């Protein structure tokens, strides 16, 4: 059996393809904007690259305690510590006290402190006797100062033993600092219930921001796919309206429903694919054209970047929406009676 004459009505097919191409171009251009933005953000993030990660274990009330062994499966060389809020007397106010054990020299500047006295940085407390009230109460001596760019100057530094006594969590820690972690290590940490934060927040903030924009812009698929589906629906609807008599003859001659359906969806597939390819080409050209012309107009402009994966996604979305849109009129035609089809007056040739 010969194929149905595809693209018989050339003008309609071309118009539909062009319409679909416009939709695909819209998708590609939108994705290009996000990619261009991502490139700019990456460049910006590189300025603030961080090699350090703060590792904590989220619990019901925030930072919970963990043992060193839990983390050693992922990374052995860590700076470990305890940080807690306590009441300081005689000042009668809340203050943050921390300890850190940096056995492997992880921190950018050494701050290891092992004696049981307390050190201040910028706080205005007098040196001398103090009392710290946490889970337990300790009488200690504020005996000097420390300096650090990593820890706040309104924290008090003391030894691990003191923080363990204050928290009554001997042998455990509630934060760790690590040098650069790879993706596998980050995934392992997450799997083990830990949270790893880059110690330069803007890096993740920008990356997350781009992800959010990418997510937002992915919604452009929805209107585009909808219009592609409507175009395909109209095209196949007009096709079956025009060729109902011919299809009726084919059915009479033995063409099964699957074959008729495949003819019609095949038409939709070809129209959508053609429109998709054209749209991708136009989208790429348009993206670079906009970038180039905008560079001439605006002093600061980002360059749209076309990503191969997203181009493939745009094409698949286009074809899928086209075939989906054609499904309704194709099914209608497939399920109609050949007798009714033959009653339709065919075109005189």
């Amino acid at each position, binding site marked *: 059996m010969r194929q149905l004459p595809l693209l018989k009505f050339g003008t309609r097919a071309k118009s539909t393809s062009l319409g679909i191409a*416009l939709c695909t171009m819209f998708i590609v251009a939108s994705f290009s904007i996000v990619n261009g933005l991502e490139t700019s953000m990456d460049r910006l993030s590189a300025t603030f690259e961080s090699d350090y990660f703060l590792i904590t274990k989220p619990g019901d009330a*925030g930072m919970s305690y963990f043992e060193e062994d839990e983390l050693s499966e992922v990374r052995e060389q860590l700076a470990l510590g305890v940080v807690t*809020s306590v009441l300081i007397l005689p000042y009668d*106010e809340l203050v943050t006290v921390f300890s850190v054990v940096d056995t492997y020299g992880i921190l950018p500047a050494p701050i290891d402190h092992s004696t049981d006295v307390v050190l201040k940085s910028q706080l205005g407390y007098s040196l001398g006797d103090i009392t710290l009230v946490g889970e337990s109460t300790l009488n200690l001596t504020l005996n000097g100062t420390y300096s650090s760019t990593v820890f706040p100057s309104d924290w008090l530094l003391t030894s691990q033993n003191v923080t363990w006594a204050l928290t009554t969590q001997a042998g455990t820690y509630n*934060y760790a600092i690590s040098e650069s972690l790879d993706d596998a290590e980050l995934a392992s940490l997450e799997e083990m219930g830990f949270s790893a934060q880059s110690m330069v*927040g803007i890096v993740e903030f920008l990356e997350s921001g781009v992800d959010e924009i990418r997510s937002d812009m992915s919604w452009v698929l929805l*209107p585009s796919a909808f219009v592609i589906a409507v175009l395909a629906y109209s095209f196949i609807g007009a096709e079956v*309206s025009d060729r109902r008599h011919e299809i009726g003859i084919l059915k009479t001659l033995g063409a099964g429903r699957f074959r008729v359906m495949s003819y019609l969806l095949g038409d939709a597939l070809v129209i959508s694919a053609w429109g998709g390819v054209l749209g991708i080409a136009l989208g790429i050209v348009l993206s670079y054209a906009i970038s180039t012309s905008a560079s001439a107009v605006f002093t600061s402009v980002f360059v749209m970047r076309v990503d191969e994966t997203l181009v493939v996604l745009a094409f698949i979305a286009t074809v899928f929406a086209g075939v989906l849109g054609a499904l309704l009129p194709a099914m209608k035609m497939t399920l109609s009676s050949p007798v009714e089809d033959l009653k339709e007056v065919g075109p005189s040739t």
Partner: protein
Amino acid sequence: MVVVALAIVVFTATAAVLSGLQNGAKAFSGDPALVISSEGAPTIFSSRVDNGMVLALDSAMEQFDAEFEVSPEVFAFCSYDDESFVVRGVNYTKFGLVGPSFEEFEFISNSSIYDRSSAMIGSRLMGRLGLDVPYSLPLVGSYSNKVDFVNIVGWFETGTTMDDELFVNLDRARYLSGMPSDKISIIRVSADDPDIVSDILSPEDARFTIFGFHVSKSIVSVNEIFTVALEVRNWGGTSGEVDVSFGLRDTSGDNVSLENITVLVNASSSISVTRQFSHNSVGAQTLLASVGGEFPVTLETGIEVVEPYIRYWGPSLVMINETFNVTVLRYDGVPVDGATVTFMNGSYTTDAEGRTSLTADTLGNYSVVGTAVGMDGFNVSIEIADPLWFPDSFLPVITGFQLSSDAVKESDSVKGIVQLMNVGIVGGSFDLAVYVDFLPGVVYLYNVTLNPLESIQFTFTLEDMSVGTHYVNVDMFSDEVVVEPWYADEPDFVELFVRYGGTTELSDPASIPLYQAAKLSQGNVELALFSIGTIAAVLAGLAIIAVFSKEIHEGRRRLGILKTIGAGRRDVLMLVSPQAIVRGLIGASAGLAIGLAAAEWFSRSGIFMLFGHELAIEWSRGLFVLILASAAVISLLSALVSALIAVRESTISAIRNLPDEDVSPRQDLQSIGDD
């Protein structure tokens, strides 16, 4: 009609979301309040405004008799558990007067929100992070490696983008963002009537102020010439003349006019005025400069007229056989070159720095006598001591104290210099107590280390002192400093007025934070979003045309019959157009309603995020009209295009179900006209 409605739904929702994206950067301002950021900063969060501006604006309330409030804020950025969010440093007291009202507010902790490590979390961020209050949250630095953690003691809901943020106190945010202690990111301003603020900040008429009032000397001798300089700023929209007066007021309150001048100042510009005066009455005087106009401003500063004299600066106790320096200073602190210093029968002449070296070779109390031509001299006593006299212990003694300035501006710091000596032969350290005012006062303790018999100068800094006169006491010594208000005497403040005048919302250059950071300009962001919106409109139209065309195509045979029995193209157009338009408009109305509801749902559901904030769609009248008009135009045009397609069908081809004839639209229109 369903497809028309769906197409308009898609268009409306898309346009609304694009509008939200376009306004996304304003999320950093939180609400439509006036937000002031520094002019040179490319982004709102790289903005650095001097904290003194807050004090200046506070003062302006009294000056202009206007009701508005200001709140300083500092931005930091953080991520936790794969969720990024903005950390906003606020002064809770001031924010409560300016920021958006709290629709809901719950405080769940024994701690105070004013504690250093306390934080409040927005309701949406709390949901995103999936945490319950209280919660200890680890934070990191924004731009450099830093560790921090806060105790979240409560949550709030404002109904603004701030619900996606974490509030901490200003110092916490400064630490996280690495911002200096005297800086803030932005100033939020609110007023019952924004027009008042607008009028103050950016008047159309000429309006003048004076600032940068500077006197060359704070102490002058009788008839000595001193120079007075100030800047006159016209922050209005037109140029104009203003009278500037200079005068003196003595301690009894009597005013003496020095000079009145008239100056012409162009719109939005400043000129410098410099004058030289002298005075012949000894005593403390207040120098006044004033400007008239709608908002008269008077600036004043103190000046002391004295008989000329010299003074001694050096130790009061020295060890035997020790060579020590003394400095001879003029009444105004200028070193005196060529002054004569007599000590233990020796006569010495000071160098260009007013300094000379003396050696004490005999035990006892001796006079140091200084003389200089044309000025009163000094006669001070110093003690020459033997180290063996001193006890076998640590005995710190304060031998002198003075402040570096006797007058500073509010939020400026002042240095204190303490002359210390250990009169024991054992080294050690002690807490030096510095009292600022009494009852109530503040005591600062500084740990000082001294070696045996060591004499040192210890310097400390006093910051954030309130306006007024403060007495600083160290041991038996006392000095005073006058802290003057910022208002109207600070160039940046006046610049601030001019620079940000007239905006009742975030100014455009400051409202594009992350776009700018990513080397984007507001222009190309808007261009990109407008383009996407236009394409969305075209696509919606395309969908409607496609489905109308299909309907018309299915009815082409009936149209052909109508033509056969005499219907012209105009008749066909008149037959098809109303149906298409009615269906189009009904579908568009339904689509518009559903689309707006969908957009609002999108906005509230938190599906769309933009740099740590939920995308908020601002339903302005302009946006609503734009969407409404676009939807109407799309449906009408689509209906008309579809009707034209129907008209293009030739009678025979329609009846015989043949493809369209190759007739151009122009021929169609001509044909309709002919009919």
